[in-house]
C-alpha cells in the first residue's frame, strides 16, 4: 500500500515538475540543482531554495520600499539588487522570475519609474507563484519520502 502510494506521489511529482517546466516557471537548472543532491547533502535543494526565498524576500522588500519612496532616485542600487535577484533566480532555475527581473532591470536602466512599478508588481506576482509551486513540490516530496519510507534517492 505504501509503495503504491509512493509511486503515485512520484507520478504527481513528475507531473508537477513537467507542468512547471511547461509553464516556464522552472528550467533545466533546477534539475541540475537536484542532481547536486546526494547522500552527503540530502536536503541540498530545499536548503538552497530556502536561502533563495529568504534572500529574495529581503530584496523584494528593499525594491518595494525604495520604489515607494517619493524622492527615490537611486537606480544604481536598484540595479545591484536586481542583478542579485537575477543571479540567484537563474541559479535555482526560476526562469520566469528571472525574465521579469531582466525586464525590471531594463526599466530601471532607463529610469522608467512607471515601468519599474509595473515590473515590481509582476515580479511579486511571479515570485508568489514560484513560492507556492515550490512549496507544493517540496510537500509532495516529503509525502513521498514518508510514503516510501526511504531516503530520498538520487534523481539521475
Amino acid at each position, binding site marked *: 500500500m505504501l509503495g503504491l502510494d509512493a509511486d503515485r506521489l512520484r507520478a504527481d511529482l513528475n507531473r508537477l515538475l513537467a507542468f512547471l517546466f511547461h509553464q516556464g516557471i522552472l528550467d533545466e537548472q533546477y534539475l541540475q540543482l537536484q542532481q547536486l543532491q546526494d547522500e552527503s547533502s540530502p536536503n541540498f535543494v530545499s536548503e538552497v531554495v530556502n536561502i533563495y526565498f529568504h534572500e529574495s524576500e529581503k530584496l523584494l522588500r528593499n525594491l518595494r520600499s525604495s520604489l515607494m519612496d517619493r524622492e527615490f532616485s537611486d537606480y544604481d542600487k536598484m540595479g545591484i539588487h536586481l542583478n542579485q535577484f537575477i543571479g540567484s533566480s537563474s*541559479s535555482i532555475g526560476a526562469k520566469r522570475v528571472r525574465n521579469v527581473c531582466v525586464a525590471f532591470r531594463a526599466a530601471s536602466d532607463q529610469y522608467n519609474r512607471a515601468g519599474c512599478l509595473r515590473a515590481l508588481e509582476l515580479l511579486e506576482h511571479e515570485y508568489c507563484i514560484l513560492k507556492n509551486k515550490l512549496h507544493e513540490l517540496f510537500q509532495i516530496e516529503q509525502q513521498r519520502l514518508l510514503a516510501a519510507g526511504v531516503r530520498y534517492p538520487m534523481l539521475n
Partner: protein
Amino acid sequence: MQETFAEYTARTAFERPLLSGVAYAERVVHSKREEFERQHGWTIKTMQREPSPIRDEYAPVIFSQETVSYIESLDMMSGEEDRENILRAGASGKAVLTRPFRLLGSHHLGVVLTFPVYKSKLPLRPTVAERIGATAGYLGGAFDVESLVENLLGQLAGNQAILVNVYDVTNSSDHLIMYGHQNQDGDLAFLHESKLDFGDPFRKHTMICRYHQKAPTSWTALTTAFLFFVICLLVGYILYGAAIHIVKVEDDFHEMQELKVRAEAADVAKSQFLATVSHEIRTPMNGILGMLALLLDTDLSSTQRDYAQTAQVCGKALITLINEVLDRAKIEAGKLEMETVPFDLRSILDDVLSLFSEKSRNKGVELAVFVSDKVPEMVMGDPGRFRQIITNLVGNSVKFTERGHIFVKVHLAENSKPMAEAKAETCLNGGSDEGVLVSSAHQFKTLSGYEAADERNSWDSFKYLVADEESRYNASINMPLAGETSQNVTLMVSVEDTGIGIPLIAQDRVFMPFMQADSSTSRNYGGTGIGLSITKCLVELMGGHISFVSRPQVGSTFSFTAAFGRCKKASFSDTKKSNTEDLPSSFQGLKAIVVDGKPVRAAVTRYHLKRLGMLVEVGSSVKMAASACGKNGSSCGTKNQLDVILVEKDSWLSGEDGGLSLGMLDLKQNGHVFKLPKMILLATNITNAELEKAKAAGFSDTTIMKPVRASMVAACLQQVLGIGQKRQAGKDMLNGSLVLRSLLYRKKILVVDDNMVNRRVAAGALKKFGAAVECADSGKAALKLLQIPHYFDACFMDIQMPEMDGFEATRRIRKMESQANEQINGGSMDEESARKGKWHVPILAMTADVIHATYDECLKCGMDGYVSKPFEEENLYQAVAKFFKAKPMSEL
C-alpha cells in the same frame, strides 16, 4: 563752223563716252544781243524755247554735237541756277556741274559739265574779274547720269539684286536724286554709301548701294548655325547624360554600400540569431533530456522504456547538432577563439580511439593510431578543438566504412617531403609492376590489406618514415635537431579509411556546410553535413589546411596540417611528470616481439609498446618470432630475456602450424630457469570458437582487443605480468562526471560570489565532484583568504559584485602573487614556496552571460578562463581540465 564742230565732236565722241554730247555757248552781253542775233539769224531762246527775256548776259549755244543739236540757240543761262553755275565757272576757271535736271532730248536725268573758254591768255594768277572779262564762252557737256551710272557701274547696276542710287547732296537737307528711283523699297539694313567726285568741288554726290530685295537668308549660315546648335545640343545632352549617369552610379554606389552594410548586418544578425536560437533551443532541450532521464528512472514497461530511450537518443543527437550549429555560428561571428594550452596529443588520440572502438569493433573495422616519434610529447594548442577535428574525421570514417581499416597518422609536416620523394623513388624502381603484383594478389600493403585511396600510408612509403625516424633518433642522441629549436611545430595528420569513398561529383562541395554527397531522402547515412565544414574552419583557425584524396569504393584519406607551439622546457618537465602518471612506467625495458604480417600494423603496435618504454622487435611470421625466441633461449642471457610475444590474429590463423610450434617452443623452454615469454593475441574481433582455439594454441594469457591503445595494453600487461599492481585509469570506463571527479577530487577551491544562492549552488556543484569548497561573499573576503601562503588550488570568481568586482579582485590577487614571487626569487625560499614553485592560483570567472562573455577582459586582468553560470558539467570540465591533472581512479 557749226559743221566743223559737229564733225569734230562726233569723231572724238568715243573719247568721251560719258558725255551724251558737247556744245559750245558763246558769252553774249546784252549790249551785243541784237548784233549777235542779227549775225546768226535767230533770237536767243530760253530753255523753254521762248525768246529770252532781257538779261545782262547770255550764253546761247552756237555749236553743238549732232546728238544734242536741239539745244542750239538756247540760252544756257536762262535758269537762275544755271546762270550762277556758268558764272561761277567763268569766275573760277574750273569745270562746274549743274544740278541734275531732265535732259531735253532724252528726258533722262543729267548734269551739265561746264568749262569756261577764255578769249586771250590769262595772267599766271588771274583775278576773278580778269577771268570774267576774258571769258569768251562756255563749253558744256551733258552727262546723262543714268547712262553714265549704267555704263560705269554696269556690273553693279546689271545685278538686279543691287540697287544703286546716286544723289546730289550739295544741299544737305534736300537730296536730289540723280539716278535710281527715289522711293524704292530695298533692304535698308545693308547699304553702302560712297562719295562721288565729278570734279566740281561745289557739288557733292553720293552713291548709295543696297540690295534690291531684303538680303536672302543665308542657308549655309543657317545650316551651320543649325548644325552647330545640334552639335551643342548633342554635346549638352551627352554631358547631361554623363552627369545623370554619374549621379545614378553614385546613387547606386551608395545604395550598394547601404545594401552591403545591411547584408553584413544581416550576416552578423544571422550568426547572432543562430547562436541565440541554438542557445534557446538548447535550454528547453536540456529540460526535455532531463525529464527523459527522470522518466527513465521510473518504473516503465519495456515498450515505454524503449520509447523513452529512443526519445533520449534523438534528443542527444539534436543537442549535438545544435552544438555544431552553435560552433559554426561562433566561428562565423568570429567568436571562436583558440586556446593555447599544453596538451598531450597522443592521449587525445587514444581518447578518440576509445570513443569509436566499440563501433569499429562491431563493424569489424580495424582502428589504429600512429604518432611519429618526432612529434613532441606535449604541444601548445587547443586540445578541445583538436579533439573535435579528429572526432569529426574519425567519426565520418567510421560511419562510411564497413570493412578494412581506419588509420590515423600524425607526423611532422616536414617529413612529408622525404616521404614523397621516397614514393617517387619506389615508382621509379619498378614500383609499377610491384603494384600490379600486389593488386593481383588483392593484398595492399596498407594497415588492413585493403586498398586505400592515398598510397602515402602504405608500407612502401611508411617504412621510409619509420626508418627515417630511427636514423634521426640515433642522430639526435648526439646533437639536437635543428627543428626542435623553432617555436612552432607543424603537424600533418591524416585519417585514412577504406570506406565507400566520396563520389567524384560531390568531391568539390565536401567542405560546404549542409552539403552531403548523397542528399536524397533515401540516403543510407544520416547526418547534417555540417561536421566537415566546421572541421575545415577549425583547421584554418589552427593555421593549417585540410585536403582529401578519395576514390569511390576504395576509400578516403583526409589530411590536414595544424600549427602548434612547442612547450617550454620548464612547463614541459612539469607536465611530463603528470603525463607519465598516465602511462605506467613499470614496463620500461621489457622486451617484446610483435608478430604481424602487415608491416604498417606492426609499426602501429610497436608504437604503442614503445610508448610504454618497451623494446620491440617485429617479426613477420610466427616462425621468425619463434626462431628469435629460440636464439633468446640459447643465449641464456637474462639481459636479453624476452618477456612478451604479441601475435596478430591474422598471422596466427595463416600460419597455424607456427602456432603449434610456438606451443612446442613453450614446452621445450619449460625446463629453463628463465621465465617464459607471455603470449598475447591481438584481434579486432574474435569469435568464441576462435578464442578457444587460441587458448589451446598457447595464447592462454590474454587477448588484447583492438584498437590498440597504450593504456589498454598497459592494463593487459599488468594483468598478465602481474607488475604495477596499482590499477590504472581505464579511460574508457570514465564518463564525464567521473572525469570531473578525477580532476577536482580533494582540490581546495575558493568560491567567491556575493549572491548567497549562487554561492551555495556553486559550492554544491563543486563538492559533488569531490572538491573541498570554501566560500567568500565578496572580493575583499577573497583577498583575505588568498593571502600568501594559502592552500587553495583554484578560485572561482563572480564578476559582478558590489564594492569590488571580480576583475578588480583578480588584479589585486595577481599583484599580491607577483610580489610574493619576487620575494622567492630574491632568495628567501621557504618550504612552502619551494613546493609550489611559483604562486599562481588559477582564477576562473563565473558569468551568467556566455555568449557575450568578455573573455578578453577576463584574461587581461589575469584570469585563466571562465565558466558559465549556472555550471554545466562539460563547460566546467573544459575550464578545469587546463589546470588539474586527473588523479588515478584508484585514489577516488
